[in-house]
Each structure stands twice: as C-alpha cells, then as structure tokens.
C-alpha cells in the first residue's frame, strides 16, 4: 500500500463530504436541511474541480478554476430560488417537513 498522493487525499475528502451531504439530503425531514445537503454536495464537487486544476498538467489554462467559479455562481442562484420555494410552500401548507407535503392539489 503506497502513501496517498495529495490529489487522492483531496479527492477522498471531497468524496466523504459528498456522501455526508447526500446523507443529509436523504435523511432529514426539513426541506431547508435538504437544500443544505445539496449545497454541501455542490461544494464537494468544487473541491474536486480545484484539486484537479491544481495537480493537473496545465494549471495556466484555468479550466478547473473557471468551472469552480461558475459553479459557485450557479449554486448561489440555486440557493436563492430553492429557499424562496421553501418559503412559498411553507406559506401555502404551513409545513416545511417534506413528508407532510404530499398533495399535488393546491
């Protein structure tokens, strides 16, 4: 068993963070916690992109870095719309727990 390379170390941390975020999105009942889990998963993907940029062959091309920056911008937009949806649903049904929101009729 050889020592873990720096790239593999960062990828393992990202994989573990992704799994934690996925568990948070699947296990919790509150809609806001599901959104937080999705944010954690997006962040883990960003860590992967930055690690591949840093240890890849052409860091001066900035591809991984640009991917991460655009991903951060899209995640911010997603958070704003997602939390707005949670607030709208709460106002409609008086519940933010996902297992109580089980009707498609308005």
């Amino acid at each position, binding site marked *: 068993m050889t020592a873990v*390379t*720096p*790239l*593999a*170390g*960062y990828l393992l*941390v990202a*994989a*573990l*963070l*992704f*799994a*934690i*975020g*996925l*568990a*948070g999105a*699947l*296990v*919790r*009942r*509150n809609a*806001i916690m599901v959104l*937080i889990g999705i*944010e*954690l998963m997006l*962040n883990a993907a*960003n*860590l992967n992109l*930055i*690690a591949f940029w*840093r*240890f*890849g062959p052409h*860091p*001066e091309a*900035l591809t991984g*870095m*640009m991917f*991460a*920056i*655009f991903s*951060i*911008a*899209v*995640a*911010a*937009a*997603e*958070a*704003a*719309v997602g*939390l707005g*949806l949670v*607030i*709208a649903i*709460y*106002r409609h049904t008086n519940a933010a*727990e996902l*297992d109580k929101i089980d009707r498609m009729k308005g």
Partner: protein
Amino acid sequence: MSPIFYLLAALTLAGGLATVLLKHLVHAALAVTIAFAGLALLFLQLDAQFAGFAQILVYIGAVAILIVFAILLTHGADLPKEGVFSKTWLVGLIIAAGVFAVLGWAVLASVSAVPQQNTMPAVTVHDIGNALVGRYVLPLEIVALLLTAATIGAVIVAMHEKERPR
C-alpha cells in the same frame, strides 16, 4: 501530505457531520458555515486564492445568511414532535455509504494518467480577469443572465400569494 491539510480536512468534515446530525436547524446552519469556511481554507491551501475568497464571500456571506433567514421565516427553529429524521433514514444512510464506497474505491484504485504537478501554478487575479472577459466571456454572460433570472424568479416565487376563490 502536510499536517495543515489533515487539520483543514478534519474541520470541514466535522462541520459537515455536525450539520447532518445536529437536531436544531439554527445549530445546523452554524455548522454548515464552519464546513464552508473549512472548504475556503482548503481552496487557499490549493493555491486557488480567487476561488477561496469567492467561496467566503458567496457561501459564508450570502448563502449562510439566506439559510438563516429561511429558517426563521418557516419557524424552523422549533423542533418538530415527530423528530428531525425521516422514517426511511436507514435507506438514505445505506445509499450515502454506498456512494462513498464507490467513490473511494474509484479514487484509490485508479492510477493517475497524468504526471502530478507539484509546482505552485503562477496564476494571478489579473490572469483570471483576462480569462473571464476573453476566453470565458460567453459563460460569464450566461451566468449574468441566470443570476438576473434567479433574482426575479426568487422574488416572484416568494411574493405574497393573492387571495383566490377555492
């Protein structure tokens, strides 16, 4: 692997775990802020200063505040009587563990096709700005359009519902 990496990785993962496990939503929001900060420090450790500071500005500055606002607006601060974990929590845990097993196996079993670059990349904010308005100008414009649409959409979605006959 430097000890700083292990320290930052432990901080980030502890923040993530605390987010999932803490019952109180406000505590979970604080824990996810710690995880975001740890990730920003990991970005800085990877010589990606711009991404690290963007992470601090966007996630700690904006997303964490948005989450706290949403918690307070939906009365998420009071604990539900039925518990905070869903009835099918075991299935979710098994799926997450399976995903981690596959990802970890793929990382450890694969041999990197490219030689590892260990010199610090000489990239300045100047280069990033040039790339943003040069090679990546079309994605930049699309992101600008997306952010505008998301702002308008979030306001419309969260706007007060009109009273309508049922």
